[in-house]
């Protein structure tokens, strides 16, 4: 809408000629300037400028909907991708929402990629089995995608489907994996995707992981300013999600959390209470900073402590703060407790990584050929 052309907005012809003569062609150009500046630039009366800006604004403004209409639309289109983890689905009111960015953040090896593999499979499944019956685009920046593992998860979770002749191949055929090696490649694939998402019935977009992009950015020596290409990609991802109403799942890494990171507001003063020191023991915080944390709609934190792993719903407009203990098995991630444990206070945002075995040790058991290939 921002790029709507002024000469198509129904302004009187003399006025739109004045605009184009001064190279103000789109709504964005016209509305970025204060009215006085426009008047000086175009050399016309202030009342005419006001009327023109009002007309341009009316044409650029998106149409409104009532809350009721929104709800009805959501009900019709389903609106969620079920994760097949009942406790998590209830907490998220149905599953991973369409049209929003869902972030999975946690230390390496905890199970984020496993979760993504299962989601990819679920989106490809036919609707009669609870899936979305569509294609999946999996952007793999760290070469972690394992199709063998994915088929294994499929066999473990839906044995009756995967034994059917040719179905495994059909499912795997719906998942498109791309491995960009630089930010420009990533941006190019995003641009192309904007069209194909609608044309080719893509029902899920997974980016695993997005933090790798930032490390490419840093490697090239670009100072991460406001205008670094990564910021552009992140906001573009969000707009793709909105535009095409598909769920977008993004994984993020963690980095160590120094004492400087526990920021306070000026009115809070410098306090050293016990809750803070306990939090800094975790030494971990999500990468990409606070601006990214604002941009995601749902944040699921994967963490480990006291010998168990947990999925925590840290940020979500519709869920209470709960944590679910989980394990990773051959059929993917399984929740140990479907009701979840309620987490009080700012604990929900902490990421802990203590006392568990790294996942790579366990994967040795599963390196066998899947049954349909034997």
């Amino acid at each position: 809408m921002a790029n709507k052309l002024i000469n198509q907005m129904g302004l009187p012809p003399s006025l739109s000629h004045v605009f184009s003569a001064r190279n103000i062609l789109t709504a964005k150009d016209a509305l970025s300037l204060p009215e006085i500046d426009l008047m000086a630039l175009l050399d016309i009366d202030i009342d005419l400028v006001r009327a023109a800006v009002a007309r341009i604004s009316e044409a650029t403004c998106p149409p409104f909907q009532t809350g009721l209409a929104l709800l009805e639309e959501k009900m019709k289109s389903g609106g969620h991708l079920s994760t097949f983890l009942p406790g998590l689905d209830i907490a998220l009111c149905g599953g991973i929402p369409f049209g929003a960015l869902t972030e999975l953040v946690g230390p390496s090896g905890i199970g984020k990629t496993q979760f993504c593999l299962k989601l990819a499979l679920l989106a490809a499944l036919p609707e009669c089995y609870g899936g979305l019956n569509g294609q999946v685009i999996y952007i793999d920046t760290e070469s972690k995608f394992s199709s063998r593992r994915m088929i294994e998860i499929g066999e473990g979770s839906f044995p009756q489907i995967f034994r059917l002749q040719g179905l495994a191949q059909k499912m795997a055929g719906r998942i498109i994996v791309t491995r960009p090696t630089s930010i420009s490649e990533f941006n190019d694939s995003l641009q192309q995707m904007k069209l194909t998402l609608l044309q080719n019935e893509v029902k899920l977009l997974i980016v695993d992981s997005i933090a790798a992009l930032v490390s490419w950015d840093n490697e090239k020596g670009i100072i991460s300013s406001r205008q670094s290409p990564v910021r552009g990609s992140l906001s573009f991802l969000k707009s793709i999600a909105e535009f095409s109403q598909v769920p977008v799942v993004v994984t993020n890494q963690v980095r160590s959390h120094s004492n400087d990171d526990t920021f306070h507001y000026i009115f809070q003063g410098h306090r050293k209470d016990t809750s803070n020191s306990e939090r800094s023991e975790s030494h971990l915080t999500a990468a990409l900073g606070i601006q990214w944390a604002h941009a995601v709609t749902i944040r699921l934190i994967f963490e480990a402590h006291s010998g168990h792993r947990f999925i925590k719903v840290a940020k979500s407009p519709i869920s209470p703060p709960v944590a679910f203990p989980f394990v990773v098995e051959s059929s993917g991630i399984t929740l140990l407790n479907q009701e979840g444990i309620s987490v009080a206070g700012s604990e929900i945002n902490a990421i802990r990584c203590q006392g568990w075995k790294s996942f790579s040790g366990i994967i040795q058991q599963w390196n066998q050929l899947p049954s349909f290939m034997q």
Partner: protein
Amino acid sequence: MEISNLPISPSIRSKLLSKGYTSLSSLSSISPSFLAQELSVKLEEAVEVLRAVSDTTTSKSAHIPYGIIPGAVTAWDMLSEEQMQRHISTGCEDLDAILGGGIHCKEVTEVGGVPGIGKTQLGIQLAVNVQIPVEYGGLGGKAVYIDTEGSFMAERAYQIAEGCIYDILDKFPSNSREFLSCKERLQVNNFLAGIFYFRICSYTEQIAVINYLENFLTEHGDVKLVIIDSVTFHFRQDFDDLAQRTRVLGGLSLRLMKLSKMFNLAVVLLNQVTTKFTDGSFQLTLALGDSWSHSCTNRIILHWNGNERCAYIEKSPSVPSASAPYLVTGKGIRGINSNFKRARIM
């Protein structure tokens, strides 16, 4: 005031100056046709110039108390008007109390906080609470929700509306005839239908919708609340020129203030946080810079206080700075004592 400060187009201004009209008094006794001839412009344009001159020098008509300053009102009149004003409840009694009753109409209130603290929850709660009928202590108005981040979830609005209606019926169990008719209006679907939702995808659209609101509000006169969630998002991503950003934001905030006064509604802006280096360390502060922090009438910061969520009034012309804890429950924003069932008034 000189000619150079008049709101007229540059070419006419240069013609005036070249003909020797440098001050306003030189134009005070000239007829439009003479001016048109002098400057060789059309008659309508000359009339415009003279009107601009007279607007800046003479007083406007209408209400002139004591004839001192045109268009002003006395503080006493303002006080009586304010006392009749209803406020929009936030759902949490403690927070309402420190705000002096709730969110004020005719004012712009900014609410900021870290991600996940409950800004969108508060926004949706206000959009529901503004619709509480007048008989139950609310404003009985509708809400405009401008969503720039896609955080508005219709299912959550449903839950919050349900919770609000449940609490109203709990608090006012009376079955008298006056209440019966508005009880029918207390339906969740009515509350959802009273929220006008705009989804904004760029800062251009954000500017456009705020410009368009004047027309919209004239058509829908029962809107009493405008929420922008969040005002920061697009301005942080796409703007190259920070000075221009400050100017555009200044224009936006002025327009919003004008709308709130003209249509007697409350404007609530939700903001994000960023870090600022002051006094040798990084501190959390609301985004969009120092000049923006002057634009809003009231400023509330939502923050974590240990394991509790707290709302702190950082800036307000009428109430002192204070903090109040609040909860985000399944029914929406509530105070910490609201878990106890209210005693029924027999």
